[in-house]
């Protein structure tokens, strides 16, 4: 037990060992300009990213004469603190990390990177295409680079799923074979099937499934993951012509009903789960299936030590609409980094950005916890292939290709928040599913009108590549 405990969760410090194991002296991509004691301020979200980037501080100073100053901002405050600085035009941050979903609000304050990238290629083609298109490019212009390959897919306890007794029992009960859920409808069956009291003390202590994050704030992603699949061949957040919200249509209702049912059958207290609760519940074997970001895939040894089982990987559940299988996923956040329009040191800022995110250097980032693989070269690198299961890398890459864009229009953060409140109200039973979605839709209409319908229509079309 004590041993298991020791292994039970990763701490940020553990990642330093990886980097120590790899070489700490990555080469500079190729000769680029040097600067005379210029300071570049990078706003990152505090914790893992901050620590991973800080490793390269001295090298950047030595190679380019740039002082990298990192400002760590707690993830829940990143949007507001950055937008305040950017909109003020202070130039206090040269580089800013943010979510693709906030692009609509950020883009006015960002420096287009095309001219820089044309001069010094940041190994653009090596960034995974799903990220290049839906995260880094906006209205045909390149504004950002991906700095963390977040994407959502499925983890499962393969021993349990491959157990013949379980398979027989499942088949008998549901009439199809037990397998990692291929559709969201199946998620509910799996949730119900594995819902048991394993030690006979009268308390349920095992469940089938957990969503990535449910708590107020980011729980709306778990709704959107379902919605983009239930919505069939052409999912849209809003009607591209009228900008009338579509999330409260039949697909939306189906999606939220499904989400609600999953939570109802899930562990008590799930409504307040964040990353770590979902992670801990899966890693301790209390939940057999988990849709999450790519972090767990590098913790298979820990998982086996805890649960005695092998970790399995599968693509995200989808939906069958009109006989056709939908297979879409989202970044569920995801991190990109762009340059402030008001930066006083743009050349230096780009040089730093290109260095840290170059294929060579970024390999070190992804070997530390918190940053996930985002370059094709990383997927193919021998070190990565050695530490990561092949199936994981395969599922991971396919999932990036299935990436559905976030709502990248002005007010994105507020649209998301309105949706989040409504989704939570439905999950908590305050409102019926339809009422909640109608409320969200009404709030979306209000936001659209406030920002300007025509402007939003143009932004929406451009953001969705229509």
């Amino acid at each position: 037990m004590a041993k298991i405990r020791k292994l039970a969760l990763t701490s940020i410090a553990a990642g330093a060992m990886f980097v120590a194991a790899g070489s700490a002296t990555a080469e500079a991509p190729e000769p680029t300009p040097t600067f005379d004691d210029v300071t570049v301020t990078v706003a990152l979200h505090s914790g893992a990213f901050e620590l991973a980037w800080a490793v390269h501080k001295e090298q950047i100073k030595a190679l380019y004469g740039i002082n990298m100053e990192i400002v760590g901002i707690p993830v829940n405050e990143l949007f507001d603190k950055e937008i305040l600085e950017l909109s003020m035009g202070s130039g206090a941050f040269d580089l800013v990390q943010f979510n693709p979903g906030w692009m609509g609000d950020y883009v006015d304050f960002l420096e287009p990177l095309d001219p820089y990238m044309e001069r010094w290629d940041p190994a653009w083609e090596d960034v995974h295409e799903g990220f290049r298109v839906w995260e880094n490019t906006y209205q045909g212009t390149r504004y950002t680079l991906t700095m963390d390959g977040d994407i959502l897919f499925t983890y499962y306890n393969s021993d349990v799923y491959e157990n013949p007794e379980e398979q027989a029992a499942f088949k008998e009960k549901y009439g199809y074979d037990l397998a990692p859920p291929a559709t969201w409808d199946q998620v509910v069956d799996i949730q119900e099937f594995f819902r048991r009291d394993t030690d006979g003390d009268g308390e349920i202590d095992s469940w089938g499934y957990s969503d990535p994050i449910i708590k107020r704030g980011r729980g709306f992603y778990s709704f959107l993951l379902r919605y983009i699949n239930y919505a069939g061949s052409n999912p849209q957040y809003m009607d591209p012509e009228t900008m009338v919200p579509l999330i409260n249509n039949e697909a939306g209702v189906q999606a939220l009903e499904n989400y609600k049912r999953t939570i109802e059958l899930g562990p008590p207290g799930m409504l307040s789960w964040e990353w770590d609760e979902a992670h801990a519940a899966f890693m301790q074997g209390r939940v057999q299936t988990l849709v999450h970001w790519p972090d767990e895939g590098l913790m298979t040894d820990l998982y086996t030590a805890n649960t005695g089982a092998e970790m399995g990987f599968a693509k995200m559940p989808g939906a069958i609409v009109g006989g056709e299988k939908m297979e879409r996923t989202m970044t569920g956040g995801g991190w990109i980094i762009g340059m402030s329009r008001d930066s006083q040191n743009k050349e230096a800022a780009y040089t730093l950005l290109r260095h840290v995110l170059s294929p060579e250097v970024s390999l070190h980032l992804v070997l530390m916890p918190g940053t996930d693989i985002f370059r094709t070269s990383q997927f193919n690198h021998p070190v990565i292939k050695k530490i990561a299961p092949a199936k994981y890398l395969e599922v991971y890459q396919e999932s990036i290709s299935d990436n559905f864009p976030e709502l990248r229009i002005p007010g994105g953060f507020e649209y998301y928040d309105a949706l989040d409140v409504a989704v939570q109200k439905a999950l908590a039973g305050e409102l019926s599913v339809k009422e909640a979605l109608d409320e969200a839709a009404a709030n979306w209409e209000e936001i659209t009108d406030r920002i300007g319908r025509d402007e939003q229509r143009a932004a929406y079309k451009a953001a969705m590549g229509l």
Partner: protein
Amino acid sequence: MNAARAPIVEVAASLAEPSGFKAWCRANSFALVLLAPTVLILLALTIFPLIYSVYISLFDYYLPRPHRRAFVGLENYGAVLTDARFWASMRITGIFMFFSISIQFILGMALAVFFFDEFRGRSAKAVYLPLILVPMMIAPVVVGYVWRLLYQVEFGPLNYMLLQIGISRLEFTASAGTALLSIIVADIWQWTPFVTLVMLAGLVALPQELFEVTEMDGASTWQRLRYVMLPLLSRVIAIVLLIRLLDSFRELDKIFIMTQGGPGTVTETVSYYAFLTGFKFFRIGYAAAMSLLLLAVTAIICTGIAKVLHKEQIFER
């Protein structure tokens, strides 16, 4: 005003020529000098910003798009007053205030009476008193985090203890039914010691013979409470309620840490909602209008209380 304590200003005035504003200023010049820095600081930090806030509240002002700021007159006020989420948050604030203050009051009073009996006849203060005072001295942010740990549904100590005595897990802040209650409990934990301490001080200050007499008459604890303590403590009670009323109306820190207003909006107090509109949605004009309305509510409470306090001379001993 106590006659034995003629204020110096009268002494000074009797030496000077007693006429008009100039004379008043001359007589009070020293006081005005002493007060000047404070008044300047407070004017700069409260009055000036408030005027600025009134100005902002007349604009449709989305912070990230400063160039699109448009004058809308009183529209923001109308919008706030017709905003269902605003009224819901007012209602939640009301529920929060009512339950947390009344329970704190009852519990705090009971503890005060208990400790009072405990202390009587002893000069030494109990060593454990500082221990129960810690909750109100620590930062509300820390209170929020600590209770989040305690409320962990899967891994928390409270549910573990409940399971040991055969009660199923509670969902605390994770369920719409119990979330507000859970915050109220944390607030009660934080502020009951305050009520206890103040009441205790009030009881200690009462003439002690009173208690000896009532005890000899064979009055029950309840009778003593109802007919002796409560009436004599009315001044203390008024103060406690005033402070708790205004402080809990502003409640934000614990919500910020514990639930962010969720699940849904069941724990979204009006302060937190105003914070969200201003600093997350950046609807600065709207947020300014909302916060001015809150200020008006506070001002009404304060003015009412000021009248009572002044009349009853509560702060004038």
